[in-house]
């Protein structure tokens, strides 16, 4: 199941949501708004998305993961808007019979999400400036 939300991610319940007597392994990944990036201090992150396409891409990633690994359950949640420090911007939860598949699928899903899904992060630096992050593009002046 995939979800794009403007609400806080309920990280406490995500692992429980995919847990079942058929699964032997659950892997939950959370991406957290981090205070320090390359030595600079952030006060908050803001996420924007091309929502329609992001939903389609996330559904595609879930399908591909289920094709590649024997997954019993798979959840991907991305939060948009302001994400305060220490809070999750993204969560991936997978359940499978064996742990290897759950780790591999979880890692592949977050790597693929970061590479492909049209979502963008805006850093709000402690010095008051803001900056949309576009890897490979130099900073906007």
């Amino acid at each position, binding site marked *: 199941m995939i979800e794009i939300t403007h609400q806080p991610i309920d990280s406490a319940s995500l692992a429980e949501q995919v847990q079942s007597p058929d699964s032997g392994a659950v892997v939950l990944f959370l*991406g957290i708004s981090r205070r320090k990036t390359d030595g600079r201090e952030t006060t908050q992150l803001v996420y924007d*998305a091309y929502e329609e396409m992001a939903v389609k891409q996330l559904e595609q990633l879930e399908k591909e993961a289920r094709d590649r690994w024997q997954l019993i359950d798979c959840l991907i949640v991305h939060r948009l808007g302001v994400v305060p420090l220490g809070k999750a911007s*993204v969560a991936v939860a997978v359940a499978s019979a064996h742990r290897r598949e759950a780790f591999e699928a979880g890692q592949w899903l977050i790597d693929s999400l970061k590479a492909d899904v049209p979502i963008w992060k805006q850093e709000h630096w402690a010095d008051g400036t803001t900056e949309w992050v*576009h890897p490979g*593009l130099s900073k906007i002046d």
Partner: protein
Amino acid sequence: MKITVKLFAGVRELAEQSEIVAELAQGSTIGELRKCLIADFPQLGPHLTHAMFAIDSDYASDDSLVQEKSEIACIPPVSGG
């Protein structure tokens, strides 16, 4: 044909608008759209050069044909997660 292109994140900020419009000949490609936009919006040049484009919510290549009824979006390098 008039093509409306959705903008996001740094490109939207730089353009100070969430959509821009290009005037293209019938049968134009994404590559031609890119060139036309760079000419019309020089301040977006580096972003447009490095961006992907999407047609109807799927990534498109520079060879993909643009149709008037398609939803076109400019996708600068992503940073979600």
